[in-house]
């Protein structure tokens, strides 16, 4: 059904178009009525006024106020109220009797439009979306605010992350990268393809850095680290990265075209760091030990650092302050070392580590005075091994104490056997510092008394370095042992500080002169003079002196001539298993007879 004609009552017109304007064309476009909401805004000012007098046609521009034409047009018309900020937007419809109605609503110019006009939601027809525009605007404003907040939050997060990264990756002392930085950057570098380039990793340790700290203080030490860091950075940064791993340890990873270039860079790093520096007015020279590994197929950072570390370790064993390059043999040695490390504790438990005995001779009386018990490891696979090959391992494995104690116990057992066979010797046993622990004196005295051995026949041999590290508790143990008759001897005298002050501080009853003094006999006059002076001093202190390393008759005769009473060395016998000792003793010919 089509509606031919619609007739609205005034109130209905108001409900549906509360902003309408009714105009009579016949009476010069005079306004004959307005909607209630429009009335609320413009009041009675419209009475007896034409449309033109109250409203100005704003759009379309330059349009004549011809109601017939405007009604026929499809256009939207906008009128500005001449006396308020109100604008109305709508279209014209024609009624009977030359009456026209402008059907419109408020044009929203700003978010304040409703407020300025004193309008509320209830002033709009229920189907009029005009207020929604304001709501949408407000919602959009809130959205923009939310967006800004999010951006601000994000910015804060990024700044926080950057600052954190900066802190987390920088070494606070030197300002260069730290271990974390190195691991992250380095791992990326290792994973990148390096077209024909050599990837090199380098570890650098400062020699004598502790001494700098101890002598000049940590402030100077810290300055040294900063200078070294800068020099490393300047030398390496064009080709790779440098970081401080901690302490005086630095690491670098770089890429160069060939091994020659790598060598040149490593040398220039060595030169740069070894160059004199002034730190807090101190003129200093530090030398680094450098371990380098330059391989084509380094997979990960752990492996790369491990190689450089091995190189440094091997290099340092030979000499400090050098550059040492990783070789596959180093890895083989390391593997060997590791397998021994895992065997050593078992070896001690299985009694594969046993004492060998080397005679100590009373030169004046021309007889064997005692034996030094020296540990040997009869390894089931690698054969006979010497202390130099396994003492460090035992220390690393934490079983040096067991080893010392076991050698002592079995040496005393052997002494008891010899006692039964009618030979009375003294027994010399080496002890490392860490084995001198609380309760050792009681243990030793128990071992001695169980075997009916007089305490004065046991000589504990301790090195100077060991004594130097002793504090009050260890000294007390030595004092207690000495008080009960055990003899304490200073071993390898002449290799360490060679200071006789220890002889005063500790209950030392004797000294063993290191074998190195007799090396190159008789050409090394200095050493011989030293032996003489030590002898002189110890005689005053009423101490026994054993000269080690006597290998020839001439050496023995010279030692005898200067009045040294005891000697030890291959000339008298090599270290041997217990059962071979007495056999050797029987075939031993005293010096005088040999000389004759």
């Amino acid at each position, binding site marked *: 059904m089509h509606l031919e004609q619609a007739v609205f009552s005034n109130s209905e017109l108001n409900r549906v178009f509360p902003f309408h304007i009714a105009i009579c064309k016949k009476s010069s476009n005079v306004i004959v009525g307005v909607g209630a909401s429009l009335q609320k805004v413009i009041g009675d000012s419209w009475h007896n006024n034409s449309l033109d007098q109250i409203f100005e046609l704003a759009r379309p521009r330059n349009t004549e106020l011809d109601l017939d034409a405007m009604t026929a047009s499809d256009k939207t018309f906008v009128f500005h109220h001449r006396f308020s900020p109100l604008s109305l937007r709508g279209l014209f419809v024609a009624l009977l009797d030359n009456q026209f109605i402008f059907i419109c609503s408020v044009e929203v110019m700003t978010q304040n439009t409703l*407020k300025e006009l004193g*309008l509320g*939601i209830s002033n709009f027809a229920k189907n009029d979306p005009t207020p929604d525009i304001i*709501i949408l605007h*407000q919602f959009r404003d809130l959205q923009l605010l939310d967006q800004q907040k*999010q951006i601000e*939050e994000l910015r804060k997060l990024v700044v926080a992350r950057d600052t954190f990264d900066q802190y987390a990756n920088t070494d606070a002392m030197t300002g260069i990268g730290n271990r974390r930085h190195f691991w992250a950057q380095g791992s990326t570098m290792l994973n990148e393809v390096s077209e024909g380039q050599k990837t090199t990793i380098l570890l650098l340790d400062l020699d004598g850095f502790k001494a700098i700290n101890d002598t000049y203080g940590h402030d100077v030490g810290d300055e040294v680290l900063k200078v070294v860091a800068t020099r490393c950075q300047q030398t390496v940064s064009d080709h790779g990265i440098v970081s401080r791993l901690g302490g005086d340890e630095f690491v670098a990873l770089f890429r160069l075209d060939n091994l020659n270039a790598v060598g040149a860079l490593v040398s220039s790093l060595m030169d740069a760091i070894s160059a004199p520096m002034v730190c807090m007015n101190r003129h200093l020279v530090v030398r680094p030990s450098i371990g380098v590994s330059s391989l084509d197929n380094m997979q990960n950072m752990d492996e790369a650092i491990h190689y450089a570390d091995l190189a440094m370790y091997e290099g340092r064993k030979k000499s400090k302050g050098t550059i040492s390059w990783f070789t596959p043999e180093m890895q083989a040695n390391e593997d060997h070392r590791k397998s021994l490390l895992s065997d050593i504790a078992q070896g001690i438990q299985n009694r594969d580590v046993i004492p060998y005995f080397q005679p100590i001779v009373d030169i004046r009386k021309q007889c064997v005075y005692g034996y030094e018990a020296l540990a040997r490891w009869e390894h089931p696979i690698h054969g006979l091994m010497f202390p130099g090959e396994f003492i460090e391992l035992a220390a690393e494995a934490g079983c040096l104490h067991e080893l010392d104690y076991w050698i002592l116990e079995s040496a005393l057992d052997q002494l008891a056997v010899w006692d039964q066979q009618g030979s009375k010797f003294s027994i010399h046993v080496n002890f490392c510092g860490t084995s001198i622990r609380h309760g050792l004196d009681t243990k030793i005295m128990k071992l001695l008394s169980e075997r009916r051995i007089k305490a004065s026949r046991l000589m504990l041999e301790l090195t100077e370095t060991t004594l130097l590290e002793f504090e009050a508790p260890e000294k007390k143990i030595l004092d207690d042992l000495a008080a009960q008759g055990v003899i304490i001897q200073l071993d390898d005298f002449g290799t360490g500080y060679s200071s006789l002050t220890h002889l005063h501080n500790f209950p030392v009853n004797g000294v063993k002169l290191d074998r190195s003094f007799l090396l190159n006999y008789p050409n090394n006059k200095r050493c011989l003079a030293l032996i003489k002076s030590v002898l002189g001093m110890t005689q005053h202190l009423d101490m026994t002196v054993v000269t080690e390393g006597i290998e020839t008759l001439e050496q023995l005769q010279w030692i005898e001539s200067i009045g040294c009473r005891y000697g030890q060395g291959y000339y008298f016998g090599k270290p041997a298993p217990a059962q071979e000792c007495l056999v050797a003793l029987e075939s031993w010919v005293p010096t005088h007879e040999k000389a004759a």
Partner: protein
Amino acid sequence: MYGLVNKAVEDLVISSAGLETWQRVKAHAALENLQLLDTTNYEDEITYSLVHSASAILDMPVDVLLHAFGRHWVLYTGEAGWAKLFSAGGDDFVSFLENLDEMHARVNMAMPDGRMPGFSLTENNTGFMLDYHSSRQGFAPMVLGVLEGLAEQFEEDWTFEHVDTREQHGLDTFQLIRETPVVVGNLRNAS
């Protein structure tokens, strides 16, 4: 519910007990990192959690807190971004309530994920009855608070009574009675 509502809870806690307490409320609700945004729609769970945590931390029963929240809601919506809309709600208390349903409906246009409450106001011989419909449980104390805040806003004296509850009658209904101002002159005439 839209962040706008949760933000009003936040605003209430911060303005009455401080930022540090709000952090504790969030921590209690296991929402430490929650950064509320007005125009984001959140799970209702979050609103419930925040309200319950605030009630625990401020040591205030939930309905008392919701009541306070209702009063605060008027201030908050009147200021935070919606001020212009609020003023378009009506010129007096009654007209505002009459338009409330339409207001929520129009707001729903901009916030299409909202589940808006419904209100209908009818006049009776003692005053007005306001029916409150909601898809959610438990917000009736808030409505009482909003009504009080609204009356205050328009500087009109009203008393409110929660006459029917959703639990007992299936719908929350409030009786609204306007206090007639006592004029001294009238009293004198009466005596």
